[in-house]
């Protein structure tokens, strides 16, 4: 009986992720517009955009290679798998032994590498520009993310996400200074990876500043839809990862049905708060010059390493 329940909860989690990701992006855009005294677009605007794009005709450049045509599906697959791995609705997931925290970061890196390769595939100036900047940001952000995960795994003596959640929820409530450092570092990495304001503006198409947008410049129609959907899935995955590591309470472990039902609203609430937080940070900060980004991310990296050092020093 519990095997069916596990597969059901796993499937449910992935479906919820697929549906909720555009909602989350819509919610963040709404918050940002309100904070900037603008009338906000509806919550389901991203959904409509995806639907519109799926029905449009896909235009592919002549110089594109078969890799370009495969790449949207690979990235979409990576992001859905990432959302599947992160325990949002229950900790007993069949997929959890398949990949632990390091494999998750590797999975995100796989998605990113394919995105960069596809961007370079057409051979335009902006594609390669975007790819270089993306990889440049990535090689500083990924180590910081891994260090954050390591700080947490040193506390919970495990790198598998479900084990981390299980261990953190059953610990007495205590302040972990190393987790505090890790938290700040994680938010900085989240902003960098999801092309939010201080590192890259998600809405802009200004050649000089765009990183993520430059890479999906050449996509159109269903490919663009998949890319947008993957981007929002990525944001969703990062937020869920933040929740599992820093606010894991409320994620049920053994699968009794009403526990699952209760988890949904808790998750929605947490995501909403997360969305507000992101909107706040975005409106409060201005975009950094591209060569100021290394200092920003180096700061994140150092915070994460200090977090780990603090763990070794204070033992917590």
């Amino acid at each position, binding site marked *: 009986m519990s095997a069916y329940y596990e597969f059901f909860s796993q499937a449910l989690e992935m479906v919820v992720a697929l549906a909720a990701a555009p909602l989350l992006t819509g919610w963040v855009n709404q918050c940002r517009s309100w904070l900037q005294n603008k009338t906000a677009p509806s919550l389901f605007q991203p959904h409509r955009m995806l639907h519109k794009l799926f029905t449009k005709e896909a235009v592919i450049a002549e110089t594109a290679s078969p890799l370009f045509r495969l790449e949207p599906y690979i990235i979409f697959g990576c992001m859905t798998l990432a959302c599947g791995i992160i325990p949002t609705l229950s900790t007993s997931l069949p997929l959890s032994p398949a990949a632990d925290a390091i494999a998750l970061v590797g999975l995100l890196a796989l998605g990113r590498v394919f995105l960069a390769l596809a961007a370079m595939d057409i051979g335009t100036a902006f594609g390669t520009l975007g790819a*270089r900047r993306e990889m440049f940001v990535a*090689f500083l952000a990924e180590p910081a993310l891994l*260090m954050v995960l*390591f700080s947490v795994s040193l506390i919970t003596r495990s790198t598998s996400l479900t084990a981390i959640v299980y261990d953190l929820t059953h610990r007495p409530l205590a302040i972990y200074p190393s987790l505090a450092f890790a938290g700040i570092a994680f938010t900085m990495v989240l902003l960098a990876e999801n092309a939010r304001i201080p590192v890259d503006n998600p809405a802009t198409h200004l050649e000089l500043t765009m990183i993520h947008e430059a890479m999906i410049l050449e996509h159109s129609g269903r490919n663009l839809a998949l890319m947008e959907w993957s981007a929002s899935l990525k944001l969703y995955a990062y937020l869920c990862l933040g929740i599992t590591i820093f606010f894991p309470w409320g994620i049920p472990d053994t699968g009794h049905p009403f526990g699952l039902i209760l988890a949904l609203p808790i998750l929605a609430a947490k995501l909403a708060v997360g969305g507000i937080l992101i909107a706040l940070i975005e409106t409060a900060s201005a975009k950094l010059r591209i060569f100021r980004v290394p200092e920003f991310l180096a700061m994140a990296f150092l915070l994460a390493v200090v977090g780990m050092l603090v763990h070794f020093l204070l033992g917590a």
Partner: protein
Amino acid sequence: MADLRLMDCIFGVAVGWLAIGICGLLLIRHTRFVARVLFPLSALVGCVLGFAGIVSTFGQIQTSLLPIGLPNLPFHVRIDNLSSYFLFVQGIVTTGVSLFSAGYFSREEDTPAGLICLEYHLCIASIVLLLIADDAYAFLFAWEIMSLTATALVVAHHKDPEVRYAGYLYFLIAHIGAFCLLFCFGLLGINTDDYAFASIRLQRPDLMVGSFIFFLALFGFGAKAGFLPLHIWLPEAHPAAPSPISALMSAFILKTGIYGILRVSLDLLPIQVWWWGGIALAIGLATALFGVVLSAVQTDMKRLLAYSSIENIGLILAGIGLSILFKAYGMYALAALSLTAALFHVASHAAFKSLLFVGTGSVLHSTGERNLGRLGGLMRFMPWTAWAALIGSLAASGLPPLGGFVSEWLLLQSFLLTPGLPNSFLNMLIPIATATIVLVGALAAYVMVKFFGVIYLGQPREQKLNDAHDAGVWERIGFSWLVIACVGLGLFPVHVVQALDRVTHLLLGDGIGNAVAASGWLQLVPDTSERASYMPVVFLVVLLACCIVAYLLVRHVYHVKTRRSGPWACGFPIMNARMQDTAEGFGQPIRHVFGPFFRMERTLPSAFDKKPVYKIKIEDPLWAWFYRPIAAITEFVSSIVGLIQQRRIAVYLLYTFLTLMFLLLVINQ
């Protein structure tokens, strides 16, 4: 099969390769025959070696004596788990490289293919002898022949001076390393009469002599493996060699240095001191970071891969350093884990690096270009090579489903599962070491995106790239063999780890084999499944499932209309290949962030130049800090010694007279 001792099988392989080499020499003029028959034959022998390696990893230790060598110093020969694992990796690599060479050498080079065949087979045969050597004389004998034949292979195109210079540099540093090894083995076997490893193992050197031996071994094997101060020949020699040879060198000849360090530090030396491990770890990390940063700014594709080999060797040495550290503190389980990670990386690096080098070989053969600035868009003309290089690049950047990720994963696990070392200073080192390894991994991804993107994707930067032809049949077989190896290592790590468990039991007395075996072949669990687990097959299956489901849903729910037209590029009308990012451009952020890592000479065009020129030359800083001063000192000393030649007879007579007087005074005391 049981009675056919594995030792005879290994001898058969070595003798087989020698025979192939010699008949290659005899048929030096028939290039097609050499390429089409001899190399595939040697690939077959390589398979046999791989199989024998795996079987003997699980089998018993076998020893025997070879009649050759000096009368009181015959060659002692022994197959134990460590050497059989390395034989297995050599088998895989040589099979792939030989298959590829069958296609590569079928065209006439300036050095006849028969001669290359001889030197190639002499080299791999001497490596086999090296791996099974069980006494200092045989070890050094095989070691020097390997260096000699590898140099001969590097200078195959000895027409142009850089190749000659690269060969000379390689041979010189290898030989100086060999002298250190001679000194190290001399000290090890100081009071044994036949320098056999069996009697060396009984010796109990004191701490000071032991440390001297360890650092001599580190220096000597480092000269072959390419650790930081001694890596200078690697980016010169590997690009100079023909591609299959640089594949063999990068994939396996570097690993003989690693094998040597393992043999001396963990097998022959009875005691391990913690700061040995600490220094090896520090050198390993420095080498890794230095290698990857320099490979990010290269503009020659083979130099880029050579520097990335330095990085991977650094990672392996870091793993070994860590295991020595743990063994010194008596934590045998953790030592076994980090040693398993290092040895796994030996195999995965051998697979993907040879695949990448072999890929560049095909590119070089069809376009004649090595400079990244003149390549691009080869995906359209060389699909087979491109897809193989894609898999190689993904493995090289350590991405999950493939082999590169598993070794990085195991290494990070060994760092994370430390319960904290008694020495507080080392506890500080662990996070910094983890940070460096993680940074190196990310940078490797950056390098591989640059490598694959600039060569295979985008638009061809030169006109002649349009008529580039894809790899030949044999070359494709070579690709697929190495791709299978990469993917196999990635998807079935449990079997490899169980083989490695035998090696760690031999060297450290403990292993993670039982933890891994407990959780079945599907799941890789170093300690307990709660602590960490990784199921590559499930990971890949679910990933593919998601992609396919997405593909089918999109295709069915929405109609399939696609139109081909010019690239959008934000509406810019004119579009040519020069607008793409060049290799220097792609490396520019790294140059910006890691400035002090290199010596850079840039000639910037001024506004008034009629013909503005922009030239940048990135140079390895160690030339200026370490190698040129040494050359200057030798020059200075030899000029002093030159003063003896005064060209006047009277002065020479004076020398004789003074020596006589001096000696007479000496004996009067």
